């Protein structure tokens, strides 16, 4: 997974390309590079952050160019492996996002024909392949080359002999075209374009685009022109800026009351949720990766409790390669970006198995939404911090909406009960706000416990996946080793690791398993572990058993995941901040994982 930007226009390309790259940095950031065609082709690239590259760039003049930010999959991050890559003649430059599966065979073949390879990347095979097919027309050479290539990719290419022209193509990796007056753009994601234009064309798999300053022509794999009118993007760039907060993650944590309002807006009163299927299946399968998978695990409890429908959650990377049983459940795919490669693979697998598919997604028009039968948008707005916060919370809120509608339609939820649950749903933005109001206190707790080398998160029932999500947040941004356990499992092994130097975060809200949690807390307390509990407001007993308590407002038990998650987000954030971690861009991680 990487980010690509391309430009063909009348302005100097360099500042536009660099600005676009910075807005794609969330996609990966271990190396970056720029190629510009002016009087000749100039390529500059290096390992490290985009700002590092910018600092050492020589002057580059030209109005056509492309740029790339890389997150290594083939070959370590270094100067040589950074994109763009050039051919033997030094005239062709290419940036690529995704994977070329048959690169090894191509390489062997091309090396036999005398091409000299400089890198270990799969991309370079494609560069030399295009070079070998180039007869004065870049567009034709790229088209021919792509017929010989297998894999998932989005590419942008320029040639020194064809100034003013950028060729792009996509297959299973995102690429959008930005249309402006007298200039046109190419990018992996919309934020890179928004400063310059709000008119975009989404490319489909197998399509190519040829940009010149005055035209953006989309063609299919046979070279036939595809007519497609640009769409207007409603959100603006300021949505994607930090606005006074120290980190995007903190800004996004504090945006959650608003984000939850947006998810619920106009959907609660009549439970009109963009018309999805509620009947005609016997079970539900929730499929996702990473944080979205934690939402799926929460969803299992929600759907089973509210809609009484048998539900199962599975990792997309497992589901897509497993042999499914005969039943055809409704498959709900959860992905923030809608571009997660494994989740897209799972969507195709679900179709292949004859299942109907429903996407829960944040990005309008993303690949997942086009490939699923129906989509429920979470409307959380753009999320820039790599650690998912508001998008997770809104995914869970969407699952409540689905469960309520499904429960009513299946006749397993009475109207009175539904009305009560609707009131609880509406109270969620306030529940989130009440946790945010305690941010100073949570910061103090992070100060107190943040020196730990290892931490454990424990919970039961619907709060077990929330413990997992809390541990993941802590791991990914603060680099403190954290593990989550279903509290009942402690005595089956993990208890051996618990001691005075392993603080425990225990989710002990007032629900059906509260008493059980209390005895689990006793187990870890007996080993001398310091305990931070997350409890229900008004619970006066809890503080007698633990060192510190963060209180969340009283709710129906099934809704506790929302405020409890916010507590763990703030704890993780402040723990990372005091350790000086690069919170918005943790090492080795990228926002949306568009490779397997």
């Amino acid at each position, binding site marked *: 997974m990487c980010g690509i930007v391309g430009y063909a226009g009348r302005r100097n390309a360099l500042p536009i390309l660099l600005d676009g790259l910075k807005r794609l940095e969330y996609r990966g950031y271990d190396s970056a590079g720029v190629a510009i065609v002016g009087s000749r082709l100039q390529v500059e690239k290096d390992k490290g952050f985009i700002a590092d590259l910018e600092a050492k760039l020589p002057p580059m003049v030209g109005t056509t160019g492309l740029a790339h930010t890389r997150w290594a999959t083939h070959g370590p991050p270094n100067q040589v492996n950074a994109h763009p890559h050039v051919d033997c003649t030094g005239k062709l430059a290419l940036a690529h996002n995704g994977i070329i599966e048959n690169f090894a065979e191509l390489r062997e073949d091309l090396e036999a024909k005398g091409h000299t390879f400089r890198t270990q990347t799969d991309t370079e095979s494609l560069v030399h392949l295009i070079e070998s097919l180039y007869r004065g027309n870049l567009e034709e050479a790229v088209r021919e080359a792509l017929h010989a290539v297998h894999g998932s990719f989005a590419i942008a290419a320029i040639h020194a002999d064809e100034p003013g022209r950028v060729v792009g193509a996509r297959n299973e990796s995102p690429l959008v075209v930005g249309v402006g007056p007298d200039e046109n753009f190419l990018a992996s994601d919309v934020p890179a374009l928004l400063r310059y234009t709000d008119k975009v064309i989404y490319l489909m798999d197998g399509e190519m685009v040829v940009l010149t300053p005055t035209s953006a022509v989309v063609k299919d794999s046979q070279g036939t022109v595809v007519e497609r009118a640009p769409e207007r993007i409603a959100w*603006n760039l*300021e949505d994607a800026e930090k606005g*006074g*907060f120290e980190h995007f993650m903190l800004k996004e944590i*504090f945006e959650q009351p608003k984000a939850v309002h947006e998810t*619920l807006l*106009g959907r609660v009163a009549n439970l009109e949720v963009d018309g999805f299927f509620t009947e005609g299946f016997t079970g539900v399968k929730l499929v996702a990766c990473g944080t979205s998978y934690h939402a799926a695990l929460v969803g299992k409890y929600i759907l089973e409790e509210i809609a009484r429908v048998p539900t199962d959650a599975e990792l997309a990377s497992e589901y897509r390669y497993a042999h499914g049983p005969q039943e055809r459940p409704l498959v709900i795919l959860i992905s923030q970006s809608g571009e997660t490669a494994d989740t897209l693979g799972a969507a195709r697998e679900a179709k292949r198995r004859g299942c109907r598919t429903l996407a829960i997604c944040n990005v309008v028009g993303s690949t997942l939404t086009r490939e699923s039968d129906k989509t429920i948008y979470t409307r959380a707005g753009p999320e820039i911090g790599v650690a998912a916060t508001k998008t997770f919370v809104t995914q869970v809120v969407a699952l409540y909406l689905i469960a309520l509608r499904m429960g009513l339609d299946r006749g397993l939820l009475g109207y009175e009960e539904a009305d009560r649950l609707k009131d609880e749903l509406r*109270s969620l933005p*306030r529940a989130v*706000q009440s946790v945010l109001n305690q941010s100073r206190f949570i910061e103090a707790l992070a100060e107190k416990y943040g020196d730990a080398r290892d931490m454990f998160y424990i919970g039961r029932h619907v709060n077990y996946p929330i413990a997992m999500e809390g541990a993941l947040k802590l791991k990914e941004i603060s680099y403190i080793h954290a593990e989550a356990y279903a509290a009942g499992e402690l005595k089956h092994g993990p208890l051996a690791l618990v001691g005075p130097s392993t603080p425990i975060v225990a989710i002990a809200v007032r629900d059906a398993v509260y008493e059980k949690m209390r005895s689990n807390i006793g187990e870890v307390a007996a080993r001398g572990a310091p305990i931070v509990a997350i409890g229900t407001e008004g619970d006066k007993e809890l503080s007698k058993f633990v060192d510190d308590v963060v209180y969340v407002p009283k709710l129906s038990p099934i809704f506790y995941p929302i405020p409890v998650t916010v507590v763990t987000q703030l704890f993780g954030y402040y723990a990372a901040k005091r350790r000086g971690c690069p919170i918005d861009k943790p090492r080795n991680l990228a926002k949306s994982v568009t490779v397997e």
Partner: protein
Amino acid sequence: MKAVILSAGEGARMGPFTASEPKVMIPVGNRPILEYVVQALVENGVHELVVVVGYHRERILSHFQDGKAYGAHIRYVIQGKQLGTAHALAAARAELADRFIVLNGSNMIDARVVEDLLGQKTGPAVVITQSDRPRSYGVVTVEGGRLVGITEKPAEVISNLINTGAYALDATIFPEIERLASQGKHDLPSVVSGLAGTREVAAVRTQGMWVDALYPWDLLRLNQSALASVGDVRSGTIEPNVTIRGRVSIGDGCAIRSGAYLQGPLALGPGCEIGPHAVLLPSTSLGKNVRIGALTTVSNSILMDDVSIGPSSVVQDSVVASGATARAGLMAASGRGDVQVEGEWHEVPQIGALIGEDVELGNGASLACGTVVGTRARVADGARLRGTIPAHGTVL
């Protein structure tokens, strides 16, 4: 020209309404007070803003962000301890050069006030206005358009012209701030008053709108002023047999049930649900996701986000903070009431109830005029309240 907006203070006199947000973020006409200040500046071409934040600053940051949505470019400066307005301005010193404007984020103003201030091209200036309660403010003494001095909260009325807290200043103010700080004075009026002793400070009288909220019930006046310019907007679902008169703004995703009667000016935020046969009367603002039950009447009130009022209730001249809920039959009617604020009693001619964030009121709760219910208080069915219920309190 840059403008500094002082927004760090808590606003302790606003009772339960500043429990978790600063005074400048209290919504009137469904927009925080500070938004009107930003708008007044932007309309006059002042886009470079420095906002001094402190108490619950995240609420300001997450609302305004970098200011682009409001046509401004906002930078934030944190005032750690809120010692006073001069101390707040000093916190922004590194952001300022040349001449700049200083405004108070909690005073609702219109563009005219800024225009009048900008009319004074050189030297320090203070905006003054006529007030009907000068004894609550700094009364100014003026000679031929020149400020002589500011007397804070005078015991006897010497004039009805007061300091609005809007200034044009330059960097020479900072040594003066330091000098007075060493005497333990941290408020800007003292500094400007002192400056008038050595330099000419222009007193600019404005005819523009300047409305201050000293006490929670003043919010209703601000709300009326805000709704004076509300747009006529129809969105969401409006069922048959709904009567809408006057200027009423209805947000996205609202559902207005059959038989409801809406008399403008009214502002309804997105996602509100107004029950069958509910009555909304001027000048009322409902925030996001507010629910009004069947047969309920609300008049001249502010109901903030996520408030829910059950069926057959009466809410008049009241302010209800975010997330407060009342079951059926809430009685919060208006009349003469005595209200205690920060230990002082005030007689208010027309007031309903002042209800804090996340308060829960049971069925048939009856609130005498001027009752204040603190944040997160729980009130049982059938309770009859008067006076002040403390935050987190329980009434059985």
